[in-house]
C-alpha cells in the first residue's frame, strides 16, 4: 500500500514535469533552452517524452501489479462478506453494536415476526431467519452491491492502465529491442532502410502523414525521440481534394478531406470525406484530419531588381517546397519557396474598438539564402492594399522565425502598377541623370524668387549633395552626412530643410521620368507629393530590405495538402470498458448504502432487540437508524394494518 502510494506520487510529479516541459520538441530546441550539459542530463532521464520513458512505464506496470494483487487478496473476502447475513450473531455481540434498541412488545410473537418480515421485504432488505431454542433472529441486509464499488473501481483502473499500455509505445519499444532503429536523416521515404520500417501488422501505432491533392501515401511517420520511423499501412490513402472554409472573421470554420482508401490486398476502394471530429475508421485503423498545408502550389513570379543596376530580370516559376538556385547581382543564392496562403483575413482598422475584417488576398513566403548559408525570410502580398488612402504592395522581411515581419511598402502609381516607383528609383540611382535633375530643379525653384549667384550655386550644390547622398544610403546616409558637416545645434533645422529639398527634387525627378516615358505630367498636387514621399521612404527602407530583388506574385495554381493522423489503438475498447466499470463502481461506492439489520425476538421475555450497522458511519446512517427505530416501534402496536 505504502509502496503503491509512493509510486503514485512519483507518477504525479513526473506528470507535472511533463506538463511544464514541452514534450516531443525537436532536440535542437532543448539544447538551445538548457545548454549541452543539462540537455544530456534531461535526455538521460527521458524528460522530453516523460510519459513514454522506460521508468514511467515500469512504475505504471508496478502499479497495475500492486492493484491486481490488492484485488486478488481482498475480493474473495468481500464476496463472502456480501453473501453472508451474519445470522449467527449472538445476543451479546448485537448488544455491542453501537446502534441498538430494546423494545418490549405485547402482541403475539408470531404476528410480530410476520410483520417484521413484511416490513423488511417492503424496505428491500434481504433476510435470513435463524431460530434457536428460545430466540428468533432475523438477520437482514440491503445495499450489498456497495461492495461491488470497490471491486469495480479497482478492476477498472487495472483495465484502463492495461489498455493504455497496449496503445502506448510498448510494442514499439519491443521492436526496438529486436533491432528496429530510429531514422534521423531527412531522406525520401522510399530510401528509408528496412530496419527503420515497421510492418503493416504492427499491434498499435500513431503516425502522421502529409498528402498533397492528387497524391497518395501508404506509410505514416512515427515521431520517435530525435528521429522518426516509417510505418507501413495495409492500404493506400489518396487525397482527392482538401477544403478549408472560413468564418467572416477569417477564423477557420472547417477542414475537410476527400479521401480514397484503397485496400492493398483486395484492391477495393472506399471514398469518404473526413473532417475534424468526424474521422474515418477503416478496418482497425482510424484516419483523422489533423492539419493542413500547402501541397506544392505553382507560383508565377516577376522579379524586380533592387540593386543600382536595375537589371531587367526574367520572370520565374516555382513550386512551394522547392529550392531553386538563382543569381542576382552576380551573386549566387538559393530561393526556398516555403508557403502559400490563398486567403488572409485581416483587421484593417487601427481603432481597437472597431473591427473591419477583410480578405486581403494571397500571400507567399520564401527564404533567400546566400552562399554562406544565412537566410532572410520574406512574406509578400499578391494584391495591393489600401493603407491610409494610398495603395501599396507589401513585402515583409525578418531574420529569424521568432521575429515578426517588418513590412516594406511599395507605393503604386495612378495605374496601380509599380512602374512609377521603378522609374523614379532608377533615375534617382543613375548618377548620369543627376545634373539634369538639378538643372530642372534650379530652374523651377528659382522661377519665382530671385536669388543672387552665390546663393544659386550654394543651393545647386546642396541639392546635388542631397541627391547623391540619398542615392547611396537613403535617409540614414543623409543623417550621417548632417552629423559630420553641420554643427550640432543646427542639425535639426538643417534636416527639415534637407528633407523638404529632397522631396522637391524627388518630385522633379518623377516628372522627368514621366516625361521620358512619354507619360502625361502629373503636376504637383497632393497625391503626387504623397506618391513621391512614399517612394522616397520605400527607397530609403530598401537599403535595409536585405534582398537584391523583390518578388512579385503574378499568378498561381494552388495545390493544397492535408495532414492526416492514422492510429491503430486496440487498447481503446479496453479503456472504454474500464471507464464504464469505473463509473459503475463509483456510483455503487457513493450512492448505494450498505445496511445490516438484526431483529432478535425473545418470545419468553416479550423483548425485541434491534441492532443496525453500516460499514460507513455517516449522518445518513444516523438518520436511517432513527427512522428505523420508529418504524419498528410502530409495528409493535396491537392495532396495525399488517397482520
Amino acid at each position: 500500500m505504502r509502496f503503491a502510494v509512493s509510486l503514485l506520487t512519483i507518477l504525479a510529479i513526473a506528470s507535472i514535469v511533463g506538463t511544464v516541459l514541452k514534450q516531443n520538441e525537436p532536440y535542437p530546441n532543448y539544447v538551445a533552452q538548457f545548454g549541452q550539459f543539462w540537455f544530456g542530463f534531461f535526455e538521460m532521464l527521458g524528460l522530453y517524452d516523460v510519459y513514454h520513458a522506460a521508468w514511467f512505464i515500469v512504475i505504471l506496470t508496478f502499479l497495475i501489479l500492486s492493484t491486481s494483487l490488492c484485488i486478488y487478496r481482498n475480493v474473495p473476502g468481500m464476496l463472502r462478506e456480501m453473501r453472508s447475513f451474519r445470522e449467527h450473531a449472538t445476543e451479546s455481540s448485537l448488544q455491542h453494536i453501537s446502534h441498538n434498541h430494546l423494545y418490549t412488545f405485547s402482541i403475539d410473537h408470531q404476528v410480530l415476526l410476520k410483520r417484521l418480515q413484511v416490513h423488511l421485504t417492503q424496505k428491500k432488505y434481504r433476510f435470513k431467519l435463524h431460530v434457536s431454542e428460545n430466540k428468533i433472529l432475523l438477520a437482514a441486509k440491503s445495499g450489498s452491491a456497495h461492495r461491488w464499488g470497490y471491486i469495480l473501481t479497482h478492476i477498472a483502473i487495472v483495465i484502463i492502465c492495461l489498455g493504455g499500455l497496449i496503445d502506448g509505445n510498448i510494442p514499439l519499444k519491443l521492436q526496438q529491442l529486436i533491432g528496429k532503429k530510429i531514422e534521423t536523416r531527412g531522406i525520401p521515404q522510399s530510401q528509408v532502410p528496412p530496419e527503420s520500417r515497421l510492418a503493416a501488422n504492427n499491434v498499435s501505432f500513431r503516425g502522421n502523414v502529409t498528402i498533397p491533392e492528387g497524391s497518395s501515401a501508404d506509410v505514416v511517420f512515427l515521431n520517435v525521440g530525435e528521429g522518426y520511423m516509417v510505418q507501413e499501412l495495409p492500404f493506400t490513402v489518396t487525397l482527392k481534394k482538401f477544403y478549408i472554409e472560413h468564418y467572416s472573421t477569417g477564423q477557420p470554420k472547417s477542414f475537410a478531406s476527400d479521401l480514397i482508401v484503397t485496400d492493398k490486398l483486395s484492391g477495393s476502394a472506399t471514398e469518404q470525406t473526413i473532417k475534424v471530429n468526424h474521422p474515418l475508421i477503416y478496418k482497425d485503423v482510424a484516419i483523422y484530419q489533423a492539419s493542413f498545408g500547402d501541397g506544392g502550389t505553382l507560383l508565377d513570379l516577376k522579379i524586380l531588381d533592387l540593386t543600382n543596376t536595375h537589371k531587367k530580370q526574367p520572370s520565374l516559376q516555382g513550386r512551394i517546397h522547392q529550392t531553386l538556385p538563382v543569381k542576382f547581382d552576380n551573386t549566387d543564392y538559393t530561393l526556398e519557396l516555403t508557403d502559400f496562403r490563398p486567403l488572409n483575413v485581416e483587421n484593417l482598422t487601427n481603432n481597437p474598438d472597431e473591427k473591419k475584417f477583410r480578405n486581403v488576398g494571397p500571400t507567399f513566403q520564401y527564404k533567400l539564402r546566400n552562399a554562406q548559408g544565412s537566410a532572410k525570410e520574406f512574406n509578400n502580398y499578391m494584391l495591393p492594399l489600401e493603407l491610409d488612402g494610398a495603395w501599396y504592395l507589401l513585402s515583409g522581411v525578418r531574420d529569424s522565425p521568432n521575429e515578426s515581419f517588418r513590412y516594406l511598402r511599395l507605393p503604386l502609381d495612378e495605374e496601380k502598377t509599380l512602374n512609377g516607383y521603378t522609374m523614379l528609383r532608377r533615375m534617382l540611382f543613375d548618377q548620369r541623370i543627376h545634373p539634369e535633375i538639378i538643372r530642372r530643379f534650379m530652374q523651377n525653384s528659382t522661377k519665382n524668387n530671385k536669388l543672387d549667384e552665390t546663393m544659386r550655386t550654394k543651393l545647386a550644390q546642396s541639392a546635388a549633395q542631397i541627391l547623391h547622398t540619398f542615392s547611396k544610403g537613403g535617409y540614414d546616409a543623409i543623417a550621417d552626412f548632417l552629423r559630420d558637416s553641420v554643427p550640432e545645434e543646427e542639425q535639426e533645422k538643417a534636416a527639415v530643410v534637407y528633407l523638404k529639398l529632397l522631396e522637391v527634387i524627388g518630385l522633379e525627378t518623377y516628372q522627368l521620368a514621366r516625361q521620358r516615358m512619354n507619360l502625361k505630367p502629373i503636376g504637383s498636387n497632393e497625391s503626387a507629393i504623397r506618391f513621391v514621399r512614399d517612394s522616397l521612404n520605400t527607397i530609403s527602407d530598401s537599403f535595409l530590405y536585405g534582398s537584391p530583388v523583390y518578388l512579385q506574385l503574378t499568378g498561381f495554381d494552388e495545390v493544397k495538402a492535408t495532414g492526416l493522423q492514422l492510429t491503430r489503438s486496440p487498447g481503446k475498447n479496453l479503456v472504454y470498458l474500464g471507464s464504464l466499470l469505473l463509473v459503475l463502481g463509483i456510483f455503487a461506492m457513493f450512492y448505494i448504502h450498505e445496511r445490516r439489520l438484526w431483529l432478535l425476538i425473545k418470545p419468553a421475555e416479550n423483548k425485541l432487540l434491534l441492532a443496525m450497522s453500516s460499514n460507513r458511519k455517516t449522518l445518513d446512517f444516523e438518520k436511517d437508524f432513527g427512522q428505523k427505530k420508529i418504524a419498528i416501534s410502530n409495528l409493535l402496536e396491537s392495532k396495525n394494518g399488517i397482520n
Partner: protein
Amino acid sequence: MELTEKYNEPAPYIKRLSWFDWIYGLLVLGGVITALKLYGQYMDTYEKGILIFSGCGLVALGWHWKSIRVLTIAFTVISLFSIYLYQGEILNADKNYFLKYLISSQSAIMWMSTLFFMATGGSWLGILIRSDFSARVAQHLTWCAVTAGFTGMMVRWYESYLMGVDVGHIPISNLYEVFILFCIITALLYLYYQTRYATQQIGAFVLPVISAAVGFLLWYTFDRQAHEIQPLIPALQSYWMKIHVPANFIGYGAFSLAAAIAIAYLFSKKGILTSRIPSIEILDDLMYKTIAIGFTFFTIATILGAMWAAEAWGSYWSWDPKETWALIVWLNYAAWLHMRLVKGLRGPILAWWALVGFFVTLFAFLGVNMFLSGLHSYGTL
C-alpha cells in the same frame, strides 16, 4: 427523538407529486418537443439524444428539488421575452430599453455579478449580526443571481445565432463562458445542500469564492473584451462539448464548495464563529458529500473528454497539459476519498487536504491555460 412519534410510511413516489410537478413536467416536455419540431432538422442524432436526456434530467431534478421548477420557469420566461424583444436583430441589444439595461445576455450577466456580490455581503452580515433575515435575503439573492446567470447564458446562445447562423453555438466554448457556468453551478450546489441540511451559513464561505470568479469575469470582460462572441474552431464543433463541459464544471463547482466548507470547518475547529456556523459533524459530512459528487462528475467528464479527444485529436489520451492536470486532480481526490472511506481518516487534515485540492483544481482549470500550452488552448489570458 421520541419513540411515540408517528412514523408514516411515505406514499409511492409518483403519488407524492403535486399538480405543480405535473405541470412543470408537461412544460419541459412541451419545450423539448417544440425544440425538436423547430430545430430537429439542424440537429444530429446525438444532439437530439442530448436534448431529450437533458429534458428528462431537468424534470427529474425539478421533482427531486422543488425550487428548480420555479428557477426553470423563471429563466425560461425571461429568456423568451428577451428573444422576443430582439426581433431577430442583434442591434436591438443597444436600442431596446429592456435589452440594454436588463436582459440582453451581457446585461443579465452584469446583473448576475451584482446579485452575487450583494448575496455575499448579505450572507456575511447574516453571520456577523446573527440575523436570520439577512441570511435568508442572501439566499434569495443567490437564487436571483442564478436566474440572471441562466438568462444570460440562454440569451447569449440565441445572440450567437444572430451573429451568424454558422457562428451559433452553446455558450460553453471559452473561458469567459465557462466562468459564468462555474458561478451558476457552484451557487446551485450550495443552494441544494443548504436546503437539504439547513446550513445556509455555508453561503458566507462559498459566495466569496463565487464572487472571486465574478471579479475575474468582470476583469476579463472589461480589460480583455472576452465577452465578445467568437465562432467555434473546428475541434470544438461537436456534440461532445454539450456534455463534457457541464459535467466538468459540476466537478469543479463541487470541489470549490468542498473547499469553502473546509474553511468553515477549520474556522469552527479554531473556535472562530463556531457558534454561528453548522456543527463540525455536519460540515464533515457535507465536505464528504460534495467531494463525492464532484469526483463522480469529474470522472464522467474526464471519460467523456477522452472519448471526444479520440474523435477530434485521434487519441483518447495525449498527455496534453490539461489532461495531465485533470488526472492529477482526479488522483488527488481519489486519494482523499480512499483515505476517508477505506482508511477511516477523519479530522482537520481532510479539511486542509480539500483546500489544497481546490488549489490543484484551480491550477487545472486556470493555471494550465495561463502558464502552459497545449491542445486545450481555448481560453488564453
